[in-house]
């Protein structure tokens, strides 16, 4: 995490006092839930927790790990108490968000085991399902990070993903009709989706930079327009010419050698190609943003454009360029939804994932790795349906469908608190 991400208040004053008080409260809260977990653990040492994983491939050989539910609770509790103590002692400068992202997992394991109450459950499908669900959210968050770090709010992710999904499906279908090659068609589909969304990124820049339009309104224009135009195209053309909306789909790809690793292979290395691209992009962007001159200039445009402009950085060009790049990435995310998840384009298929991506960006404190971590949490929330069917719990599907949205609200409002984003994001820049 970078210094930008966290509010660091030093010295006296009211703000510093409040930050210290908040930090103490947060430490006490971590400590308290830790104690609760320890208590729950002491009560359930007798119940066994049995998790299974596929060793070679989904549905093949499986291995079971067995422990007591109490042990998982104790582990989660100990870690929570530890973080609470550190938080209490270190006060406001302590960077608790990354720790929180790590703490989520023992808690999920403990709650899951407690809910299973001794029944065995296979986790491979759920974990890889979470990762699949996290792909568009991570990619969207990366797009958001690129543009917001350069000083442009990007509410339009949702619309850009929607247009990307539509263009990808149509372009891939048309190319397959023309060439008959699934590989070429898929590549053409992805490229077309990226370019279309990249164009929308430039449109966003044209509105926000050239016409100094409020960047939230500009993003809303794209979101509404994307719904309108894709619904229109679907109803007027695609619904009557289904051959234009039957693209070849992108199937999981086993990485040679790595896919044969026991347990890890089926989870990490037999995924859809998008998953690998996501990891690579997270790594590349982290390096580019924080270790290169390009990234320094980009961040300077978002933090202090006036200073950046004074030393000769072309802030406006940087903002346009990052909006275009962000558009390319959101187009990729959109193509994932139509080419790899659904297998065709459906009206309003993005269903809020662009906004969940924004929440992941905020939770991840505008850092690619943080965003990936946050997206995995959302991904897990998205697989609750699978989870509850494993548990055999009968919950109305409408409640399950709302889980990712509720988690988003809780994360944006409750857990995260006030995160400081790029200072000048959302303000137009006057080239002096």
């Amino acid at each position: 995490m970078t210094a930008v991400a966290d509010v660091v208040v030093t010295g006296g004053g009211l703000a510093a006092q409040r930050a210290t008080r908040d930090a103490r409260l947060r430490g006490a809260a971590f400590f308290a839930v830790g104690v609760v977990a320890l208590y729950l653990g002491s009560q359930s040492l007798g119940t066994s927790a049995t998790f299974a994983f596929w060793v070679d491939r989904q549905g093949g050989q499986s291995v079971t790990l067995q422990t007591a539910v109490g042990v998982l609770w104790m582990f989660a509790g100990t870690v929570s108490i530890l973080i609470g103590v550190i938080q209490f002692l270190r006060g406001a400068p302590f960077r608790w968000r990354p720790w929180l992202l790590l703490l989520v997992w023992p808690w999920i394991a403990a709650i899951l085991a407690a809910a299973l109450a001794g029944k065995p459950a296979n986790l491979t499908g759920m974990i890889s399902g979470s990762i699949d669900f996290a792909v568009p959210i991570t990619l969207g968050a990366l797009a958001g990070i690129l543009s917001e770090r350069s000083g442009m709010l990007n509410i339009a992710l949702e619309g850009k993903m929607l247009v990307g999904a539509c263009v990808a499906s149509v372009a891939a279908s048309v190319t397959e009709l023309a060439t008959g090659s699934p590989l070429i068609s898929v590549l053409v589909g992805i490229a077309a989706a990226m370019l279309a969304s990249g164009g929308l990124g430039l449109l966003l820049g044209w509105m926000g930079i050239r016409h100094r339009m409020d960047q939230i309104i500009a993003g809303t224009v794209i979101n509404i327009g994307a719904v309108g135009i894709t619904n229109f195209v679907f109803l007027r053309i695609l619904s009557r010419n289904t051959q234009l909306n039957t693209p070849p789909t992108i199937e999981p790809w086993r990485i040679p050698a790595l896919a044969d690793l026991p347990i890890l292979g089926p989870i990490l290395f037999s995924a859809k190609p998008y998953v690998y691209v996501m990891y690579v992009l997270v790594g590349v962007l982290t390096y580019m943003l924080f270790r290169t001159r390009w990234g320094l200039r980009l961040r300077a445009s978002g933090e202090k454009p006036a200073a950046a402009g004074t030393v000769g950085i072309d802030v406006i060009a940087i903002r346009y360029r990052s909006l275009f790049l962000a558009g390319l990435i959101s187009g990729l995310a959109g193509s994932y939804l139509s080419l790899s998840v659904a297998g065709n384009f459906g009206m309003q298929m993005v269903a809020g994932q662009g906004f969940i991506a924004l929440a992941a960006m905020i939770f991840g404190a505008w850092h690619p790795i943080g965003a990936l971590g946050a997206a995995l949490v959302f991904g897990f929330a998205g697989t609750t349906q699978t989870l509850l069917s494993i548990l055999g719990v009968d919950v109305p599907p409408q409640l399950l469908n709302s889980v990712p949205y509720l988690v988003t609200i809780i994360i944006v409002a409750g857990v995260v608190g006030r995160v400081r984003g790029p200072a000048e994001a959302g303000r137009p820049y006057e080239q002096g």
Partner: protein
Amino acid sequence: MTSAISLGRRALVPLLAVFTALLVGAVVIVLTDFENLSRLGTDPVGALAGALGGVVSGYGAMLTGAFGDPTRIVAALETGSARNIATAIRPITETLVTTTPLILTGLAVAISFRAGMFNIGVDGQLILGALGATITALFLGGSLPGWLLLFISIGVGVLSGAVWGFIPGFLKARTGAHEVITTIMLNYVAAQIVFLALSSPDIRQPTSTAPVSLPVSTFVDIPLIINLPAIRLDWSFVVALLMAVAVSFLLFRTTKGFELRASGFNMTAARYAGMSAGGSMMLAMALSGALAGLAGSFMVIGTVGQLSPDLSGGVGFTAIALALLAGLRPSGVVAAALLFGALTTGGKSMGIQSGIPVDLLTFIIALVIMFVAAPDFIRGLWRLKVREPIKEAVTTHQQPSAPV
């Protein structure tokens, strides 16, 4: 008369924005007219004529669908038959029926924007308001006198909308959670709640395959303005107009309204002056949700008569467009709502008569927002002389403080 001239000048850019957006919409219709465009190689004139004919018939259907056919209205009035008159004037009354929720939601957006809150959750607040009114009417139906039930149902609907609007306002004021994200998420949650409610046998209409509620209007109804067969225009239209007056009074003639606008204009300054910016946020969002809930209650009790998941039909989007078009002035909201009411009603008959999907209107609405928010682009496009210095584009954070 000077006020009329200045009104005209103020309305020029919004009207040109709508006109330009309709032109772009026409281009989209032509470009997606594959039947005609496929003949472009062999018969270019015929292909283009055919495609343009599609635009003319589509937009023509929109016009008659919104305002009716004048010759038919005159003919019907001459016959004096109630049925004939009703069918002839129906397009106009339907336009006013569509206008009612647009006025209310437009006011909802205007209030929240004035307070610096970007409420894109109007759809969710509307549908939950409708749900509240539906449940109240269905469960208390028969046990109370009709007029009392009417007021209670609407009251519960308004309250449900207000609560759903208050949540994002509260979250923003207390935790800083951005209202754009929370309102959108709450829209999805509201839709799921409505689906859940409609799966209950006490609410769902058993004979229908689609998830819709039992007809609410068997228990309560809002009286009609004109009592003719097949005319749906009821007094909720008048209430919506009164609400515009009320909102205008609240915003520009009361202290609370001044505080709302002040914290929208410059939150730091408002706080420094001793106003509670957080309180303004919550109040504005609750009022905004209440207006949306009122719109939903009116629809479900009066004009539509039953609850369905797609009741709002994306009114929240249209409301943003028309509120911006109106410069966030209540009087402007009424005018813009009439315009969009006509477009929407006409758009439906365009969809039925010429097969052009109504969703084109959503695209056109997005263009309208874009053109209104970038007035210098529209002025440049139509070569308008700039008589006054270009004002700041419409923003969510710093509203122009111009009074009505």
